[in-house]
């Protein structure tokens, strides 16, 4: 067992071991096929649920494991072992971005209807914020929810939605402000169930091929009042609340993926011979690997520090933003260097590394782009 480093304890390392062996046994062997098929099977949610992995941080009363964010953090890291960013993303969207707002802001009835079956893997969730005309610019969201008798009628379009085809319910940001005004006090969240007027179209992407990222169109979709999540017109707070965990989860995923890629590439460099010696025997390759190891370690330290603060109940906006910015760019750069070390083989689909590079490239865009992270940091520094 690996030595636990703060904030993790031996208990977390035990969880790490069991999650890892489950993933390597049940998921990893199929990753290539799921990538090829541009889809991982829905049954995975049930499989993870059977191991208790869909509810690590949720209370036992709701069917969860009664753990906390540190347990979840272990899973975020280990998910990299699947070797399919798209699969990790689909499972992660359910665990880390679609269900937490229901847990934190939902009514007992919403917990019962959505969270409990989600923890059991019976209902799959997605989070719908981004639109064709509004990404990080959340205040320009245009999907409208008209208030009608007994609920809302929703019209609009969401895009780049992970689990967008398979999701049974979509936690959706909509404009409810007076006169169609969105902005900071005009956005609400509705839990929209798949049904009449909800149409998904799958998107093709650079990476994350096993994920069913989609555009979802809502046409005159009736949503009952009891599916309003949190307070009317106060949805902006809800978005901001979960961003911190989403970004930490991304940082943890990057750290896991980087460590794995480094190990595999170092092994390749030891075994591959060129100019009469192993690749790792050439100074330039040895130094590349040294640089990369340093990068993995620095990302791990920054991420764990932000995680520790987050779990301790601080509001570490700055630290989480830095961890997200640093790790996503570093992960892509590391994958790109690993690809380079593999040479021609690195360019071929047969090896894992071109996929890892494609998957890692989403990091500096998703969950708020690098540019947005720098903007947040700039402002938090009073600039």
């Amino acid at each position, binding site marked *: 067992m690996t030595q636990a480093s703060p904030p993790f304890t031996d208990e977390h390392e035990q969880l790490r071991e069991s999650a890892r062996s489950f993933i390597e046994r049940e998921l990893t062997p199929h990753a290539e096929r799921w990538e090829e098929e541009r889809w991982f099977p829905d049954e995975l949610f049930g499989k993870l649920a059977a191991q208790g992995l869909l509810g690590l941080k949720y209370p036992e009363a709701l069917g969860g494991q009664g753990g906390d964010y540190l347990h979840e953090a272990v899973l975020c890291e280990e998910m990299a072992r699947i070797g399919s960013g798209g699969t990790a993303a689909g499972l992660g969207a359910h665990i880390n971005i679609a269900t937490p707002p229901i847990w934190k802001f939902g009514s007992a009835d919403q917990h019962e209807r959505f969270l409990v079956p989600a923890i059991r893997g019976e209902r799959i969730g997605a989070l719908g914020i981004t639109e064709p005309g509004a990404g990080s610019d959340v205040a320009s969201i245009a999907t409208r929810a008209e208030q009608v008798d007994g609920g809302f009628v929703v019209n609009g379009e969401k895009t780049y939605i992970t689990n967008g085809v398979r999701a049974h319910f979509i936690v959706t940001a909509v404009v409810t402000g007076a006169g169609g005004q969105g902005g900071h006090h005009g956005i609400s969240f509705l839990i929209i169930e798949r049904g009449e007027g909800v149409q998904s179209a799958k998107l093709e992407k650079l990476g994350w091929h096993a994920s069913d990222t989609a555009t979802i169109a809502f046409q005159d979709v009736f949503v009952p009042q009891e599916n309003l999540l949190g307070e009317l017109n106060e949805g902006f707070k809800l978005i901001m609340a979960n961003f911190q965990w989403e970004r930490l989860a991304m940082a943890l995923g990057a750290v896991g993926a980087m460590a794995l890629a480094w190990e595999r590439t170092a092994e390749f460099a030891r075994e591959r011979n*060129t*100019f009469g010696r192993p690749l790792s025997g050439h100074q330039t390759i040895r130094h590349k690997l040294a640089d990369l190891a340093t990068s993995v370690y620095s990302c791990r330290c920054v991420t764990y520090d932000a995680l520790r603060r987050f779990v301790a109940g601080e509001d570490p906006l700055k630290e989480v933003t830095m961890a997200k910015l640093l790790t996503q760019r570093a992960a892509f750069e590391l994958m790109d260097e690993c690809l*380079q070390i593999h040479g*021609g083989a690195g*360019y071929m689909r047969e090896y894992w590394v071109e996929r890892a590079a494609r998957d890692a*490239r989403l990091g500096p865009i*998703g969950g708020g782009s690098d540019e947005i992270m720098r903007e947040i940091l700039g402002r938090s520094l009073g600039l």
Partner: protein
Amino acid sequence: MAATAESVLKPDFKSQRKHFIFTDEHEQLRESITSFATKELAPHADEWEETTFPDWVFRRMGELGFLGLDKPEQYGGQGGDYFSAMVLGEAIAAANCGGLAMGVAVQTDMAMPPILAFGTEEQKQEWAVPAIKGEKILCLGITEPDAGSDVKGIKTRAVRDGEDYVINGSKTYITNGHRADVIVLVTKTDPDAGYDGFTLFLVPMDAPGVIREKKLVKLGMHASDTALLAFQDVRVPASAVLGQVGKGFYHIMWELQGERMIGAAGSLAGAQRCFDRTLQYAKDREAFGRAIGHFQVIRHKFAEMATKIEAARQLVYVTAWRFANGEYPVREISMAKLFASRVAVEVADECIQIHGGAGYMKEYGVERAWRDARLNRIGAGTDEIMLEVIGRSYGL
């Protein structure tokens, strides 16, 4: 034009930026290739990413004279200078199909030059003439499963047997490997002779024992067919030797210079194209109430990219000029290849970033630009090999 008090009032950003290596004729050629690629190739680019590009592209380009721009007229070429080949290397980017540009470059600037430089008259008539017409397709076999840039580690053996040679071995990552009619093959003929133990052969791809084992699936360049080939007791007559027996290593090192130059030109063109398209996007796309190009952070990204592309352009053009003037500037060619391919990848990556979520989607084409560009830091000698060549050229 000299500066005058009137002409320096306002910078002229729209002036024609013709480089000194190019004449008006080159610019006309550039226009005609661009228009051909835009009209006849680009409309199929998406489809060819799925299917690889069809062989008729070679025939059509041969018909238009584009496959022999800098090749001698006596073999059906246009008899132009080396810069006309550079024009093709750049303008073909308008096909919007990296795999196609690569397949064509293998034909014109990798496999054909050794035939014309080292081949017998008979070999030139048999292969170069129809290749310039686009009726025969060429490929080049250097890399093996266990030897890439480490050319000396090549294991494919050609053994003399009476009047013939018998070839055994395998080659991989071979562009045009499935469609080619002939391969310029690097073999070892004398395992004890070190650098003097290599020989090139022209091996017809329909010779018994040539096995096209596998179509390789890649990160990018999807329109190109890339093969793993096996040679099992392939018998060829001694007349199939290309150039001198035992001089294959030096022949192929020379070939690699042209390959790196054309690769550098392609990288440059790819970067420029990606830049242009993203610039348009940044002018159209609004966020936080204005076009994203008007945010300082994005504007400066463009400034940075434009500077890098310009630097790559000058490096590539000036090196081409030296190469065309009969120098053998291996150090500078390595620099141009290293620099231009890195710039192309960096630019494509920044363009993805500027596109945000859209950049990650297939629909916008920018993710493909990155996948295609990424090969150039590996193919024709990796960055690391370029650095090694440059470093050693200083006696280090």
